[in-house]
């Protein structure tokens, strides 16, 4: 079982962050929420591993190990 990566892993962190904000720019709250939900599902499918996803859910909930 692989572990969720929680150390820096983005090759160009600032670029990704800018892209994320740009994707939401000008959207109404509901459309932004929908975009985020779709993004979560797309990324979850890419990861594919339920154990890693469970760790990701815990990490996002700021649950301490």
């Amino acid at each position, binding site marked *: 079982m692989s572990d969720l990566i929680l150390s820096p892993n983005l090759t160009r962190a600032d670029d990704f962050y800018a892209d994320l904000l740009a994707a939401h720019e000008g959207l109404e709250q509901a459309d932004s*929420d*929908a975009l985020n*939900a*779709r993004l*979560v*599902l*797309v990324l979850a*499918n890419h990861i594919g591993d339920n154990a890693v996803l469970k760790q990701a859910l815990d990490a996002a909930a700021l649950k301490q190990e």
Partner: protein
Amino acid sequence: MRCARCTRTGRETVNKIFEVPLYAYEASPDQSAPAPVRHKVIVVGAGPIGLAAAIDLAQQGVEVLVLDDNDKVSFGSRAICFAKRPLEILDRLGCGQPMVDKGVLWNKGKVFFDERQVYEFDLQPDSGDQRPAFINLQQYYFEQFLVDRVRELQEQGAPIEIRGRNKVEAVGTHPDHVKLEVETPEGSYTIEADWVIACDGAGSPMRAMLGKDFVGRVFEDNFLIADVVMEADFPTERWFWFDPPFNRGQSALLHKQPDGVWRIDLQLGWDIDKEREKRPENVIPRLKAMLGEDVQFELEWVSIYTFQCRRMEQFRHGRVIFAGDSAHQVSPFGARGANSGVQDTDNLCWKLKLVIDGKAPETLLDSYDAERIQGADENILNSTRSTDFITPKSAMSRVFRDAVLDLSEHYDFARPLVNSGRLSVPCIYDGSPLNSADALNGPAETRPGAPCPDAPLGDAFLLSKLAGEFTLLTIDADAPDEIEVDGIAVKRLALSVKDDPTQTLKRRYLGDASSAVYLIRPDQHVAARRDTYEENAFRHAVRRVTGKE
């Protein structure tokens, strides 16, 4: 080309089905007996589950009496979707073929969201099975075919009887029997039974009379269910709508049944006036908005239902055993009601037969509780998840639901997340006290506890050869032709991978192993398996599966 006259004949047949008593009341000698007559098994309720239980027992030579407060098939189509495993069980009960012949087979479906179709699917049935993934068939036909089978058994002299308009009014439980007070058009009488199987539905009077609880989750939702006879040639597909323009914020389902009848399910929400919604002048505009203004249809049956997901804490209460909706209730999504009830009786009847014959201890019946509660919990979990997808319970769950549907229009990956009902599949009894440890490096789908999957063997299918008895299935392995363990005979079925050129047998029962020996229960579930026959191991396995170890 649709033949109007055939459809008409179909309608008349259906009307007759509702009107003609299938098991009309007749006075029984029991009613004038000086002392209560004792029966071996009494089944309360002649619905699909009660009839299946009675047929199963009668086929094994167990004397069985079915009591029903009515005398006809149930009104309206009700349960319409019957899955592969129950069809296989019905084959064992001698009435699978007429069901499949009459039923509608379908594989294709479409999913709509808002105003558009988001995707369509084609359920490729798993090859190698005699029976399809499921058929659509009105419950009244299902009951009719079961009663036909009862009549056939009676002609052959089997000890089975149905008494219509015999309503159980009181129950008395005793250590060695059950006493029933039965109300008939000619007054009441008392009878006794060694065992009682309560198959009297979700509102089970038997459960109430015994004071047993039935707790679970109530879903705050109403569904309008309508059967319409349509002239239009809609394809034989399952269509499911999320948030369609004709039923905003809710869901809808269209499904085909035999005789040109279509099942329509419309979610209505919680705060509605049921009587008002049921009136044709309110139903018809809804259906026109759904089907199109120019489609000609006739309303056959309209009902509004709510549902709960719940089960009894225990299904067995001494000598009264609950099966079907009386024991557990689920949402209709996934067709897990009648389908799981038939699996209850499949699980129960061989155990009861062994106990009645004194070949197994009464505690064997506790494994019915363990295994079927596991099955019920699985069904409740699945149907609750479907309900949570169809009716999101919070703003964010709706956001995710809609995100899944939007993505499913563009990407395959999201389609498995769309949940408009997960089709009933049989429970694998992992961890059952009847299983012996897995001693074969074989496929997971045939591990101990699993129902045997089918395989084509030239002129017959595997499951037809596993007919209600303990079987030692050997595949390219040696074993005695029969073993006897404490009066229980286990007959060998010797097969070779060569018997099945499609390799289904090998794929499902051997995997990478070169030989295998399976001990199979009368309900076609695997009890034990290993690569070769070992006398001691299989003797232990037989003792274990009959509740003696």
